[in-house]
């Protein structure tokens, strides 16, 4: 296709799909995630052809769940990698660490897929010296791949030049650190017991898709929420930052302050110390004073909540014409 002889003269430039803006900050982890994602085509095909069951589930369910989980995990880390300290992903010790994480992720995928292929258990498969050693090795690799979230969490949390709003940075850092801190004891405890169930189910009733037991305790529920802290906390942070932007991030805009002054007779000070009310919580911008108070004409239309927030502030003001009780 790139032969010199074949050069279409008038052709619109090819709009190639690229995930670079999303995951380009860490191509090695992102590439691993994409590869594992693509390999779902293989396990899905195996699920269709293979009628074998293991512990009451299709034998390929577990590999598919792990593939999805590991692809999401590596792609999430690659997404967060943009907020690592500048130059960190180029450092030799980081590259070595990332390489080890990738090897651990691929080994886990191969181990769980291989166990399904041979129709045997992956986790809790002990008894012979070889099986014991394999299970122990996989445990070490699982810890290895989880440490990536700890390293990312600490590095992003300490990176004051990330350009993230402080609340957002805290949410991402806490989520990443908690993924490690919560997953290790939960998964470690699970590994030390004989299985993931607490009790013996009689009916084998399960939660759809996730496969958690509906009758007895299931440690995988805790594992799920522990491991997805790196999604839940940043999501909570994003919601918190977005919904409270007018109140916390630099105060209401000039137009709304003006309306509030006319309505309530209260002059609200322009917010300081945070980004503009309309700042996108994820946009890595340097917070310069000009960014805080742009001219009114340059401001995009402010969200309704900006006015609501400034009204709420005004009613609380001691010199307000309208008292908080009259507000309702």
């Amino acid at each position, binding site marked *: 296709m790139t032969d010199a002889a074949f050069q279409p003269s008038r052709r619109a*430039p090819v709009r190639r*799909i*690229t*995930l*670079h803006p999303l995951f380009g900050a860490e191509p090695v982890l*992102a*590439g691993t995630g*994409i590869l594992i994602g*693509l390999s779902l085509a293989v396990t899905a095909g195996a699920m269709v052809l293979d009628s074998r069951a293991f512990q009451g589930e299709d034998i390929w369910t577990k590999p598919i769940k792990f593939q999805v989980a590991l692809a999401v995990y590596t792609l999430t880390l690659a997404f967060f990698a943009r907020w690592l300290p500048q130059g960190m992903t180029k450092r030799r010790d980081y590259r070595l660490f990332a390489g080890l994480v990738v090897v651990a992720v691929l080994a886990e995928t191969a181990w769980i897929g291989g166990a399904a292929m041979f129709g045997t258990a992956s986790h809790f498969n002990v008894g012979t010296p070889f099986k014991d050693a394999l299970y122990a090795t996989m445990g070490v690799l699982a810890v290895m791949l989880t440490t990536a979230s700890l390293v990312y969490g600490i590095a992003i949390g300490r990176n004051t030049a990330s350009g993230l709003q402080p609340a957002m940075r805290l949410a991402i850092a806490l989520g990443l650190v908690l993924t490690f801190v919560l997953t290790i004891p939960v998964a470690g405890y699970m590994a030390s017991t004989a299985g993931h169930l607490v009790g013996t189910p009689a009916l084998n009733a399960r939660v759809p898709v996730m496969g958690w037991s509906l009758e007895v305790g299931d440690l995988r529920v805790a594992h799920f929420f522990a491991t997805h802290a790196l999604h839940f906390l940043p999501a909570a942070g994003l919601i918190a930052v977005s919904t409270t932007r007018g109140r916390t991030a630099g105060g209401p805009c000039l137009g709304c302050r003006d309306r509030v002054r006319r309505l309530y007779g209260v002059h609200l000070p322009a917010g300081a110390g945070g980004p503009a009310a309309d700042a996108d919580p994820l946009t890595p911008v340097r917070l310069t004073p000009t960014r805080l108070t742009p001219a009114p004409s340059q401001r995009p239309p402010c969200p309704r909540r900006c006015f609501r927030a400034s009204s709420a502030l005004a009613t609380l003001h001691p010199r307000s014409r309208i008292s908080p009780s009259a507000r309702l």
Partner: protein
Amino acid sequence: MDADQLFNLSGPIAMTGWALLAVSPLAPRVAQIASGIAIPVILSLAYTVLILVSWSDADGGFDSLANVMKLFDSPMVALAGWVHYLAFDLFVGAWVVRRARRDGVAHILVLPCLLLTFLFGPVGLLLFLAIRAARTLLAPRPIEA
């Protein structure tokens, strides 16, 4: 020569090609000439000769799975099938190495593709195509003119 002797001969020939591909960064041109052309040609010639001399003896055909299986009851046809694998797998392996060099894929990523192509043909090809797809997806968007 009987089928067993030819089989024992075909293995080392193909293995030479795979060994050259594995160390191809040391001598890329030699590896391409040997593994990309010379050895596949030798194996393809052997395949053609085997089909010429054995096809008339073989039962079966291509119309059903049972008939295809019957074809391989004849040792000479089964050997021809084996040589077919060896020739095409090596040719694909050489293509993978060539393409990876052109696209700048690190040889350490190519080695597992070669191993899988050697053992399970299409699996290695799939892995290489998946690696290329991932690289393409993550490449920065070219600046549009």
